[in-house]
Structure formats: structure tokens, C-alpha cells
């Protein structure tokens, strides 16, 4: 069997597989097997035993999340499955690959996942500007309906599922799962208080599971290949493959499906991305998107799995790394990141709404040569005030991760800006 299940059907630069072609490649077999031979609980157990961790950034065990959903005849109805295709985290472009490259894989994954939690309605929440993906998904959904994989009485089993797509009007916070619920209900996308957690009280107050695109795409392969095959795909205790990406000034930026934990930071840059461009040097990376702590040279032999990256002081996040080269100003880069988070703050809670613009201003002052020594301490203090547990949702704690680690690893660069009253890179 393949070692790259998620991308096996993806043909770069060409149209994705049609329904017929996808079926010929073994598609919708997982749906048949799940719905005809397995009970919903069987599928839940398989996903749990496969050790599939969420690929949207937090790495929460998928099977465990599903086990919180009320099951049986007394469960509140309708239940919902939501696919989080908001992918707006700067530096992240992996879900685009899966959506555009193999839309039927996502549709099949959604039907199997819906079956496992006995959802009645499923939504794909697609970010704005993914027009090509939207078009391809729309076609795949229509094909799946006409083949009887969606709608009433799927494959004659009595299982019913409606699948719809919502194209967002754009705002990073929509990707936070409870903000996503509000957005789908036609409200401002502001996060909700947890608990209650969405698997119990979610969309319109009903049980709702929110899952990342890549996570859902794994589900049919677990059902097809079985738990031990799936776990053997990885090089760590958690299962499966991962879509890794590299962007920045490397020779071949891109995304690759590799065993989870089967590649180090250095290997990704050197072997996959073809090394640094024109004699540049890599000074550090954000391993998993904009809201992860920098890793530097001393960490470059860290395998890219959830545990190892956490041990190195960062997060695997989305697995798409951004490379900082030695011709790019680290202060400028962190200013750029903080500008993004300050702009995208939903404004609901005070520390984030007021704190992030304040940090942005301080960083801009430093970058423009107006900074003072004490600003560095003030920035560090803000990183703590906006850290985990201090704000209503994880946006602000994510925002301070690159700042706090830059202050640690690129201290000299900050100090030079202050001392020389200018940006040494400009």
C-alpha cells in the first residue's frame, strides 16, 4: 500500500480526479466499508487507536473528541460535522493542496466522519479567496450527491447526510472553532465561552465536531488500511503522515507528504526545499505557521512531530514552516507578524484588543530606530500578559509566541536597533 495516502491522487498542475476516476483509484471504498460493515463506535475506536491527532494546529486527539459527542436515540438532533477550511494562518498552505488536489478525498472523509458521530448535517467552512478550491469542491459534492453518497438513505443503509459549503467573507478568527460556529450562525465571528465544548453544545446549540481539512482527509485511509498500517506510516508514537511545507527564501518552497515525525527541520530545508537561496543562511524557523515560537540552529535536528517540537520549545502547529534568512530583519519579521495578529484580533477581550496594537507600536518604534532599551522588557512583559490563560481565546497567546522567542534568540538584533537608532538591514 501507499506511503503517501493523502497525496496519492494529486497531480500537480492538472484537474483533480473526477468521481469516476476517484472510484477507480479505490475511492469511496472506505465509505462502503464503514457504513456497511462497521458501527459508528467501531469507526470512532479505529480513529482513536490510530492515534490521529488534529492537524489544524492544536494536535488534539480526534477519536477522543468524537467520544464526547452524545450518541444513541436520545442524543440532541441535528448533530453537525464542520470542516475547518479557514486556513488563514500566515505561512500555511497545506489545506489548499488537499482541497484543490483531491476534493473527493475530503468529501469522503466528511461522510465517514459524519457517520462515526452520526451527524445529520455537515458543512465545509472555506476561507475567502479559495475560489478554485470552492469550484472543485462544489463539483465533487454534486457528483457525490448524484452517486448516492450524500443525501437520504446513503447506499441503502438508512444513513442520511446533507453536505453544504460556506465560503467565508474573510477574517482569521473564523478559524477558531467556536468563532466559526458564530460565523456560520450569521453573527460576528467572536469566540464562545468553553465549556460547554462544541461536541456537546455547538452549532445552533447542538452537538458539533469541528475538524481540520487534513485531519478529515486521514479518516478514509484509517478505515481502509486499518489501525496498524496507519500507525506504521509515522516515525513516532502518533499515527499517519503529515503535509509539511516550507516557505521563505529557499530554492524550492513547497509542500510534501512525509511520515509524521519522519523529517527534521534541517532535512525539510536541505533535502525537500533544496536549501537556502543564493548563499543565504537560515537563522531560524517558525515551524508550524505564524503563531509558533522560533526554532534556531540548535534545534534543527528536531524531528517534526508534536512531542519533539514541543520539547524544543515550540509547536508543530500546522507543520508549514517559515524560514528566516540572514538578509531579513528579525525585528521587521516579528513586526509583520504582530501587525497581522493586531489587525485580526476580534476585539472581544481587552488584553488582546489593546495589547497587540500596543506591542505592534513598540515593535514599529524599534524597527524605525525610535526604540529604547526599556521597550524590550516591556515587550517581554506583554508576552506574559497576553499569554495562555490571560485572554478569551488562543489568538493572543499564539501571537506572542514568535515575539517572545525572537526576544530570546535574536536579542542582539533588537539591541542593535535600539543602539544604532535604525534598522541595520535597511
Amino acid at each position, binding site marked *: 500500500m501507499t506511503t503517501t495516502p493523502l497525496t496519492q491522487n494529486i497531480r500537480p498542475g492538472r484537474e483533480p480526479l473526477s468521481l469516476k476516476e476517484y472510484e477507480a483509484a479505490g475511492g469511496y471504498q472506505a465509505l462502503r466499508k464503514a457504513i456497511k460493515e462497521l458501527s459508528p463506535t467501531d469507526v470512532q475506536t479505529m480513529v482513536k487507536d490510530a492515534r490521529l491527532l488534529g492537524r489544524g494546529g492544536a494536535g488534539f486527539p480526534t477519536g477522543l473528541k468524537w467520544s464526547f459527542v452524545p450518541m444513541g436515540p436520545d442524543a440532541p438532533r441535528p448533530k453537525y460535522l464542520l470542516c475547518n477550511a479557514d486556513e488563514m494562518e500566515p505561512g500555511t498552505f497545506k489545506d489548499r493542496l488537499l482541497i484543490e488536489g483531491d476534493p473527493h478525498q475530503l468529501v469522503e472523509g466528511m461522510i465517514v466522519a459524519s457517520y462515526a458521530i452520526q451527524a445529520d448535517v455537515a458543512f465545509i467552512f472555506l476561507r475567502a479567496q479559495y475560489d478554485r478550491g470552492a469550484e472543485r469542491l462544489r463539483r465533487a459534492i454534486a457528483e457525490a450527491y448524484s452517486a448516492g453518497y450524500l443525501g437520504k438513505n446513503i447506499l441503502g443503509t438508512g444513513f442520511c447526510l446533507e453536505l453544504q459549503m460556506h465560503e467565508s467573507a*474573510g477574517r482569521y478568527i473564523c478559524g477558531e472553532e467556536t468563532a466559526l460556529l458564530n460565523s456560520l*450562525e450569521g453573527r460576528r*465571528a467572536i469566540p464562545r465561552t468553553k465549556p460547554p465544548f462544541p461536541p456537546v453544545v455547538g452549532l445552533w446549540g447542538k452537538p458539533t465536531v469541528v475538524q481540520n481539512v487534513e485531519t478529515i482527509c486521514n479518516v478514509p485511509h484509517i478505515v481502509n488500511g486499518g489501525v496498524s498500517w496507519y500507525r506504521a506510516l509515522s516515525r513516532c508514537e502518533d499515527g499517519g503522515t503529515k503535509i509539511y511545507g516550507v516557505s521563505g527564501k529557499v530554492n524550492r518552497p513547497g509542500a510534501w507528504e512525509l511520515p509524521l515525525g519522519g523529517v527534521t527541520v534541517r532535512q525539510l530545508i536541505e533535502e525537500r526545499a533544496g536549501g537556502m537561496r543564493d548563499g543565504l543562511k537560515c537563522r531560524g524557523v517558525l515551524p508550524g505557521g505564524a503563531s509558533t515560537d522560533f526554532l534556531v540552529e540548535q534545534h534543527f535536528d528536531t524531528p517534526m512531530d508534536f512531542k519533539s517540537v514541543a520539547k524544543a520549545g515550540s509547536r508543530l502547529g500546522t507543520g508549514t514552516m517559515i524560514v528566516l534568512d540572514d538578509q531579513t530583519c528579525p525585528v521587521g*519579521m516579528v513586526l509583520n507578524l504582530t501587525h497581522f495578529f493586531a489587525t485580526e484580533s476580534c476585539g472581544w477581550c481587552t488584553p488582546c484588543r489593546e495589547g497587540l496594537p500596543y506591542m505592534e507600536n513598540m515593535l514599529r518604534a524599534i524597527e524605525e530606530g525610535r526604540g529604547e532599551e526599556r521597550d524590550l522588557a516591556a515587550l517581554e512583559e506583554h508576552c506574559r500578559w497576553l499569554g495562555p490563560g490571560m485572554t478569551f481565546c488562543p489568538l493572543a497567546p499564539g501571537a506572542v509566541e514568535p515575539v517572545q522567542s525572537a526576544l530570546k534568540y535574536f536579542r542582539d538584533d533588537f539591541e542593535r536597533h535600539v543602539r544604532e537608532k535604525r534598522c541595520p538591514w535597511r
Partner: protein
Amino acid sequence: MLTETERREIEHEVQTLGHRRAACVEALKIVQAHRVWVDDEGLRDAAAAVGLTTAEMDNVATFYNGVFRRRIGRHAILVCESVSCFVCGCEKLFEHLKKRLAIDAGQTTADGRFTLVPICCLGCCDRGPAMVIGKDLHTDLTPEKVDLILERYS
């Protein structure tokens, strides 16, 4: 007043979604698709069509960065200003666009052709700098390439 087409399209969304207010973002997008931006009258009528007050609708409309509540040009140029594109030089590209179009961020050219909008990550960070015009994604941009691309939009 909403046109017959706008009304029909909004009602279709309401029916598909099963909850009237859930269609509010769709309704705004429909109005914008027909009018380029969401004017006050369009906002009011779209609000009524999904059972919201005008204030509630504006509350939603001003939240999402894809809803234009001010008049824009025939084409919005959405230029990614996020981190990967920053590393790859999007600031220079943005400066070039400003000079070439003789406008600042958020402004519209005198001939009403373009509005320049900095935007966050477009999800093609491996091919930055990047921008979107209408439904077209343009990647691996250089100032020369941008000049040629702009010629295609009238």
C-alpha cells in the same frame, strides 16, 4: 430596493441553510457581487431579507474584511502582506503598486479601475509575493510581472 435577482439568490441561500439569519454573510456577498460594494440601501434591504435589523447587519458587515462598505473601484487588488510574502519582498512590490497606480493603500485610482487593498495570507506562501484580483490568483510576482498583469483588467 433589492433587484429581483438579488432577492431570489438570497432567498435560495436562506432555504438551503435552513436558518434565515445564517444567510446574512451570503446576502452581503450577493449584494456585493451585483453592486461591487455594499451601499447603505443594499445593507438595509439585505438585512430585511434575512430578518435582521440594519444595525445587526452592519455589525456583521463591518466585521468581515471581504465585505466592502465603501465604494471601491471595478477591481480590488488584494496584495498579501503576511509573513512569507514579507520575507520574499512584498513591501517593495506594494511600493511599486502604489507608485504605478498613484494611490495609497485603501484608495481607488482616479479612473475608478483599481482599489489597492493590503490583505493577510492568501494561502500560497510557497509562491509569494502573491495577490488576488477578482477570482484570479497571481503568484511569484515581480514589479515587471505586475505591470503586465494590470494591463489585463479594464
